[in-house]
C-alpha cells in the first residue's frame, strides 16, 4: 500500500512527467491550444502508457528472458508502443475522424513520448510486480493529464492577453512552459517531507 502511495505521489507531483522530467513536451505545446484535443491526447497517452507497460512486463518475463535476447529489448518495446498507438488511431479513425484530422501529426507522435519507453524500461530494471507496473504507468498518465490540464488553462489566459505579433502561438507557449516548470520545482522536497526518506 505504502509502495503504491509513494509511486503515485512521486509520479504525479514531485516528478511530474511534463514539467519536471520534460518528457513528451512536443505533445504538450501543440494540442494544449484547444481543450478538446488536450483532453484527447491525455487520455490516449495514459491508455498507451498503461497497456504498453503491462505488455512490456509480460514480454520481458515470457519472451526476452527465456530467449536471452536482452539486446533487442528497446526495439521490441518501441515496436509494442507503436502498435498500441496505431491500434488506438485505427479505432478513433472510425469513431472520431475529425478529431484525428485536427490533431494531424500530434497523434502519431505519442509513440515517441520518452515517458512511455522510460516507464517500460524502468519497470523492468526495478523488477516491479505487474500491479506496481500498472500503478506507476497510471501515475505517470495522471501526471501527464494534470500537466496538460494546468497548461491548457495557462494557454487560455495567454490567448486573451495582448502579445506582440511574433510571440503569438508557439513562442509564448514555450516561455509559459518554462515558467510553469519553475513552479513545479517547488515540489522538490515534498516526497522526503511526506515519506521521511
Amino acid at each position: 500500500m505504502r509502495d503504491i502511495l509513494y509511486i503515485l505521489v512521486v509520479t504525479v507531483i514531485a516528478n511530474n512527467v511534463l514539467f519536471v522530467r520534460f518528457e513528451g513536451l512536443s505533445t504538450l505545446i501543440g494540442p494544449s491550444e484547444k481543450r478538446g484535443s488536450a483532453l484527447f491526447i491525455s487520455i490516449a497517452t495514459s491508455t498507451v502508457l498503461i497497456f504498453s507497460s503491462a505488455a512490456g512486463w509480460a514480454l520481458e518475463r515470457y519472451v526476452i528472458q527465456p530467449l536471452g535476447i536482452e539486446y533487442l529489448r528497446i526495439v521490441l518495446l518501441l515496436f509494442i508502443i507503436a502498435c498500441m498507438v496505431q491500434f488506438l488511431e485505427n479505432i478513433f479513425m472510425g469513431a472520431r475522424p475529425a478529431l484525428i484530422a485536427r490533431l494531424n501529426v500530434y497523434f502519431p507522435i505519442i509513440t515517441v513520448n520518452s515517458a512511455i519507453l522510460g516507464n517500460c524500461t524502468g519497470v523492468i530494471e526495478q523488477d516491479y510486480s505487474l500491479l506496481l507496473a500498472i500503478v506507476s504507468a497510471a501515475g505517470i498518465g495522471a501526471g501527464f493529464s494534470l500537466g496538460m490540464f494546468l497548461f491548457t488553462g495557462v494557454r487560455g489566459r495567454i490567448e486573451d492577453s495582448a502579445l506582440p505579433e511574433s510571440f503569438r502561438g508557439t513562442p509564448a507557449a514555450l516561455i509559459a512552459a518554462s515558467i510553469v516548470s519553475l513552479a513545479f520545482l517547488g515540489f522538490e522536497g515534498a516526497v522526503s517531507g511526506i515519506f521521511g526518506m
Partner: protein
Amino acid sequence: MKDVKNRGLNVFLNGMLRGNPALTMALGIGPAIFMTYDAATALYMGLLTTLALVVSCMLMSALKRVLPRQVRIPCHMLMAVGAITLIQFMLNAYFPMVESRANMYFLPVVLSSLVFGRAQGYALRHSVSDSGLDALGVGIGYTFFLVIIACLREMLGNGTLFGNAVFGGLIRPVSLFSMAPGVLFLAGCLSALVKRMTRGGGGR
C-alpha cells in the same frame, strides 16, 4: 530547369526556417534539453539527427504507396530504428573517436519527435526528392537551433563557450539557464525571432 532549381531551394529554405517544425510546432524540444549542455555535443547531435531525418523521411516517402495506413506507425518505427542503428554503426566505423558519445545518444535521436513527426507529417504527402530536401533543411535548421541554444546556455549559465571562459567574470552566471526551464525560455525567444524575420514579404 531554373524553375525546378528554385523550387528545390524553396522547399529547402521553407524546411529550414519558416516551416521548421522545431520552431513552429516545438517538435524535438524534449531531446534538445538533453543535447544542449555544451556546444560540441549540440553540433554532433544536430548532425546525427539530420542524417536520421533525411534517411527516414526519404524511406517513408518512397514506401508511402506500399504501406497501408493501418500499419504505418509500427512499420515506420522499425524503419527509423534500423536506419539510425545503421548510421550509428557507420559513424563508429569511420569516426571511432565519437563512439562512446554515439552509443549514449542513440535513444534521444530515435525518440526525437522531430524525426518521427516530419516523416509522418510531410513525407507522406510529398515526393521522395522533395521530402529529402525538406528533411535536409529541417535538419540543418535544427542543428543551428541546437548550437545557438547550447552557446547561449553555456555563456549565460556557466560563463564559458566551447569550454573557454568568456566575459572574464564581468557577468555573473545565471543558473536558470543551465537548467531545463532556461532551454524552454531561450527556445521561445528564438522561435519568436525567426517568426519575426520570416514574416511574409513586407509584413502584414
